[in-house]
C-alpha cells in the first residue's frame, strides 16, 4: 500500500515537473498517468507494486468526488438560470452520444474476428 502510494505521488510529481519545464496545458496528474502507463509497459522495476494503492483509490473514487458535486445544489443560484440548457445537454446529450457511439462501434468493430454474433455467452 505504501509502495503504491509512493509510486503514485512520485509520478504525479514527475507530471508536475514535465509541465513546468515544457509549459504544455495538460493536468499534471494526466501526464503522470501517461508516464506511469509507459513505465508499466516498459516493465520498469517495482512499477507493478502500484496495484494495491491504485485499486483502493479507484474503488472509492466516488468518495473523493462527491464533496465537489454537492456544490451544484448548495450553489444552485449560480446555475438556475441555465437549468434548461444543463438538463438538455446532460440528459439528451448523453442519450444522443450513446446512440451515435454505438452505431459507430457497430461499423468499426462489427463482424471482426467472427465474434459479432451474440451467440457466445460470457456472463
Amino acid at each position: 500500500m505504501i509502495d503504491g502510494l509512493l509510486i503514485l505521488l512520485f509520478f504525479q510529481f514527475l507530471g508536475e515537473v514535465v509541465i513546468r519545464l515544457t509549459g504544455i496545458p495538460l493536468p499534471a496528474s494526466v501526464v503522470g498517468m501517461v508516464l506511469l502507463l509507459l513505465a508499466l509497459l516498459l516493465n520498469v522495476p517495482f512499477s507493478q507494486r502500484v496495484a494495491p494503492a491504485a485499486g483502493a483509490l479507484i474503488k472509492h473514487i466516488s468518495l473523493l468526488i462527491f464533496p465537489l458535486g454537492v456544490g451544484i445544489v448548495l450553489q444552485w443560484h449560480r446555475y438556475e438560470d441555465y437549468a434548461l440548457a444543463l438538463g438538455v445537454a446532460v440528459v439528451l446529450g448523453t442519450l444522443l452520444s450513446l446512440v451515435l457511439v454505438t452505431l459507430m462501434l457497430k461499423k468499426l468493430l462489427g463482424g471482426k474476428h467472427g465474434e459479432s454474433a451474440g451467440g457466445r455467452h460470457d456472463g
Partner: protein
Amino acid sequence: MMDKLDSLAGLVHTPLFGILLTLASYRFALWVYGRSNSLPLFHPFLVASIPVIIVLPLVGVDYEEYRDQTTLISFLLGPATVALAWPLYRQLHTVRSVLTPILIATVLGAFISAAIAVGLAWWLGAPAEVVGSLAPKSITTPIAVEVVQSTGGFVSLAAGAVAITGIVGALAAGPIFRLLKVTDHRIKGFALGLVAHAIGTARAFEYGEKAGAFAGLALGLCGLVTAMALPWLWPWVAQYL
C-alpha cells in the same frame, strides 16, 4: 456553561467535522447502494451527497468552507488519476488484436460526446463557463475536474454533469442496445465506458467480463484522449461561444 457550548458549536468549523461528515455520508451511501443491488439510480455519488446537502445549511457551514475542510480528501484525486494507468495497462493486453479500430473509435467517440454536450448547451444559450463545464462530461471524474480548469468551467458543475451522464448512460444502455440490435458484448462494453465512464463500466460488467474489460479500456482511453485534446482545442472553440 455558555463558553463550553460555544466551543462545542465551533467544532463544526473544523476539518475534522467536514471529513467525518463526508466519510459517514459515503459509508451510508455504500450501504444503500448494496441494498439496491447496485442500481445506477442509487449510485454512491448521488446518495452520499444528500446528508451533506442537508447537514451543512443546518449547522451553518457554507460550501466554500466545506471545500476547505475537505481538501485532504480532494487532494487524493491527483494520485487517483495517476492510478488509472493501472487498469488501463491491464486491459491493453486483452484487446491487442483490435487495437487500431479501438483507438479510432476512442478518438471519434470522445469527440462526439464532447461536441454534442457543448453544442446543445451553446444552442440553448448557456454562457461560456457553463458550456466549458460540460465539455468533459463523458470522461471519468478525476480527469474531468482537472480538465475543466483549462476550459474555464466550474468544478462543481463538471463533477455533477459527469455523475448524471454516467447514471443516464447506465440506465439507458439496455433499451438503446435493444433498439439498435446490438449483441456484441465488446460493443456494449466499449460504448458504455466511452459515454458513461466508471458508472457505465460497472453496468457493463453485468453483461460479463469481456464487456467490463472493454468498458474499462474505453474509460481510460477516452479520458486520456479528451484530457490531451481539450486544453489545446478549447481556446479555438471558446472564441465562438
